[in-house]
């Protein structure tokens, strides 16, 4: 998962959220079906996929899925 498209695919397949490359940068409240509890599930999935630890406080403070993606590639 090194591209934003790969990230979008993971969010769609793993969490079942209707995310596209177009709305991945929107704030969470504009993502249909988003719930803050998804953050923890997403973190577990991303760490599993990328095999590197990701800063949880940063994920919890992120404003959008794109920001979370940027945290994962910044590792």
């Amino acid at each position, binding site marked *: 998962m090194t591209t934003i498209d790969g990230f979008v695919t993971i969010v*769609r*397949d*793993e*969490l*079942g959220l209707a995310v596209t490359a177009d709305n991945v940068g929107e704030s969470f409240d504009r993502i249909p*079906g988003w719930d803050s*509890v998804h*953050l*923890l*599930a997403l973190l*577990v*999935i991303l760490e*599993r996929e990328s095999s590197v630890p990701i800063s*949880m*406080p940063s994920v*919890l403070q992120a404003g959008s899925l794109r920001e979370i993606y940027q945290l994962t590639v910044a590792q």
Partner: protein
Amino acid sequence: MPTLAELFHAGTLATQYDQVPALLAGLDGAELVKAGNLLARLDPDSVTAETCTVTITGHGTLNALVPAFTAELARHGILARTTVSDFDSYVFDLSTPTSEVYRSELVLCVLDPFVVLDEVPTPWRPDDVRTVLDEKLALLAQLAGTYAKHGSGTLVFNTIPLPRDFAGQLVDLASRAELGALWREANARLLRLMADNQKLVVLDLDLVLGEGIALTDPRMSVYAKAHLSPALLARYAKDTAHLARQVKGHGKKVLALDLDETVWGGVLGDDGIDGIEVAESYRGEAFRAFQRVARQIGAQGVLLAAVSKNDLDPVQAALRDHPDMTLREDDFVRVSANWRPKPENLAELAADLNLGIDSFVFADDSPYECGLVRHELPGVAVVQLDGEPALHIQKVLRDDWFVVRDLTAEDAQRPARYRDELVRKDFLASFESIEEYLAQLGVTVRIAPAEPREIPRVSQITLRTNQFNLTTERLQPADVTALTEDPACAVLAVHAGDRFGDNGLVGVLFLRREGETLHIDNFLLSCRVFSRGVEQTCLATVLAHARDTGCAEVLGSYRPSAKNGKVAELYPSAGFTPWAKHEDVTVFRHDLAEIGAAPRHVTLTVRIEESA
């Protein structure tokens, strides 16, 4: 077959929910959680499937439990309707009988170490922990007591694991030992709460932590108050889903085992009786250990069957004559050794035992046979073994396929009774007509109010019986007790026997008197005694009793389920006529003008007392 994700994204997963168990078969770990994330997003109202209402409450953040539990329950074909309570609201939930919790079929109250640790001062000594543990145990006992009085389902607590990072804060080993002792004493008290609370189950988390699952993820614990690791919650979901499956009446009853490379090492047809491995060698000892476990399970009422591609004679000889064999022919209700496809053998055995095929668990080392059974008989739980016999035990026991809340006296005798049943079938085959057979069978029926000691068995019949169950209403032991104490109600236990032996307590009639009307609220009969006049005898008895005690009519209800089609015509066949219909329930009425006699071949003993 499309994948679960494909169905989800196509928007058809809800309408094709019946395919979900097959799609989830064989999935575990991350794959199953992934499926759970999708399944948990479905609107339960859009799905047609049997549902289980569940409230998740407890101390920490527990949202990760929802997809895990949803997926585990979906494996069994059941849709979870899950409510997650507010954070840390278990005390409020359980002490408020009007709360949502009290209407759920299952209440998962997840206890984590911070239930205790949050209230321990800094710095602390073991005595401070003792004080908190004592308070918490008293609180939990009180909450469980309130639930026992007002709850309508099953409440689940779990033991509270002791984290290394907590015990490790004590630098002296003597204090650490003291902490370990008092912590475990508290957990022992917690486990013992089950003994006098029929609505409570306490899961022992030490057992699953011993599998090497992390207790906690420190980051999630600190940052998100999710104190139990996702892997532990997933394992907890597996165990509680099996409990839910049992509560919903889908207990597994049969363990069908392959023989070559499953029960013994080697191939009997090639290696001969002396060549197979059952003891005294590296692999032989692994198979002996597995045979002991199978025997142990069988001793608790699970029916063992052997299903093997072999000639019958050498298999019987091996089970009878091999000096080191642990399992013997008598341990199995049937040994099917032939060259027919295994699904055929399993289906035939299910028919002969009068059990649903979905009450079977099948274990085999051959991926081909496992795949075939999965494909042909999707209701069968398949345990895929492999060439490493030392892992057989773990694989068969990992899922709690045979879990029940309590064993009853009936359970120990069940395998022998089912074996008798197969003998009866052979006896039947020797007669020209069914009447001649029944006349020779010498059926006896005894109908009497359920004794207090019979209440667990009566509850078990309501939980296990699917086919001859007129309304499929499941009752926990406490519910049965309440009915026996209600002066307007009678709970009649039906015992049956014949020349081959005593069948034991095989059926229940739930009666309720309302003015001049006697209601048959439910009527259940074990599948072992179908079609030999027991059901007609019971109904004739109830009708005569109603007439003799001044009733003007008897009303009986039938609610169709996926399994009870064979009793749809029971009431009409006994002279009842359709009288009313409420949604899916048909109420039948008998005006007591003409009551059919009990079948002549049945010897009947009746004792019915109603206080009202």
